[in-house]
């Protein structure tokens, strides 16, 4: 029971966390916590096969699937805190509590005898025992699940499949289209500017600077922009001015800087107090988050 009493509060807290965290990725991680804890509880409850399956299938496969989809959907889908349906949150909470309360009351009224235990049932080992049951008593259900899985696989493929309705665009077609668009709307026909160009360091979250010093929105990923992990152009400009000022004020240090720019930048970043340090910190957390996702 020790494992239970340790894990139960963790699981409840993690589950509650799913309700409150803003970001879907965090919710997925909390769900992983719950699932792995469950796997441990399965082990405690003498279900070693389910323990393995819980880890492999649920935590390993299904949860990974969730993360894949989250990646595909992107961060645009982050939840806003504002509830759109009037009264939904209150009602859901109230009735959720009512249900929980009723369940708890109902369960606590039941007298549970001492558990029989699975020693006898697991006599020949848990997995062979399960297999015996699965391929004798539950063989039809087992066969039915195979049909279900096939159907689900085909369904997923059908849903994910995108029918090509027009012939594939060749390179010449693309070039023609771009020129036509340029003639019609003035859209730039060339490739988009690369990020990090003319910036202090090469990174995808740093927009390229246009000749007038402003940031080019086209140079960074839309996802990053939506996530808000892009350094804004004015801040960036401030940075540059700061650097220039520092450079102008200490011209004797400039050869050093020019000589080993990477190292100098790092030291400066670490040394410099205020906004720059903050920006660096936030940048690093963002990076970590990206890795996680």
């Amino acid at each position, binding site marked *: 029971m020790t494992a239970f009493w340790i894990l139960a509060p963790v699981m409840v807290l993690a589950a*509650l966390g799913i309700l409150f965290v803003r970001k879907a990725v965090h919710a997925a991680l909390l769900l992983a916590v719950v699932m792995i804890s469950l796997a441990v509880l399965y082990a405690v409850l003498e279900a070693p096969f*389910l323990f393995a399956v819980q880890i492999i299938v649920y935590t390993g496969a299904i949860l990974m699937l969730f993360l894949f989809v989250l990646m*595909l959907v992107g961060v645009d*889908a982050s939840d806003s805190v504002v509830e759109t349906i009037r009264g939904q949150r209150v009602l859901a909470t109230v009735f959720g509590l009512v249900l929980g309360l009723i369940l708890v009351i109902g369960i606590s009224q039941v007298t549970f005898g001492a*558990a029989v235990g699975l020693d006898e049932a697991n006599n020949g080992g848990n997995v062979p025992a399960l297999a015996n049951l*699965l391929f004798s008593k539950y063989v039809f259900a087992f066969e039915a699940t195979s049909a279900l899985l096939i159907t689900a696989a085909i*369904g997923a493929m059908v849903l994910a499949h995108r029918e090509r309705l027009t012939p594939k665009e060749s390179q010449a077609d693309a070039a023609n289209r771009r020129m036509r668009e340029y003639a019609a709307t003035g859209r730039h026909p060339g490739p988009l500017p690369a990020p990090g160009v003319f910036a202090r360091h090469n990174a995808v979250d740093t927009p390229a600077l246009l000749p007038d010093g402003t940031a080019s929105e086209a140079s960074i990923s839309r996802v990053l922009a939506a996530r808000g992990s892009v350094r804004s152009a004015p801040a960036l400009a401030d940075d540059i001015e700061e650097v220039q000022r520092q450079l102008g004020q200490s011209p004797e240090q400039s050869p050093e800087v020019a000589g080993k720019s990477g190292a100098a930048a790092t030291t400066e970043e670490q040394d410099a107090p205020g906004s720059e340090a903050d920006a660096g910190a936030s940048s690093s957390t963002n990076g970590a988050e990206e890795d996680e996702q």
Partner: protein
Amino acid sequence: MNTEPYILLSAILFTIGCVGVLVRRNAIVVFMCVELMLNASNLALVTFAKANGNLDGQIAAFFVMVVAAAEVVVGLAIIMTIFRTRRSASVDDASLLKY
């Protein structure tokens, strides 16, 4: 060994899953909450297996997992399709089928 706490935990997790489905708006998170409810019921099943001393409960939990896997595959594919056309993963945005 007393099995009552397991059942209570299962009930609490199930309730939290319910509320999550109702409260969250990101379709993927809603799906996670559904999974949470399924897991809670699995816990109850495995606990009952232990309490009754046979493996039928574990088999049932196993089937629940299989079905959950299938459901997740199809459900996520649907969410992808909706997202592809509507650029949104919010369950509230897919509300055209109404009065």
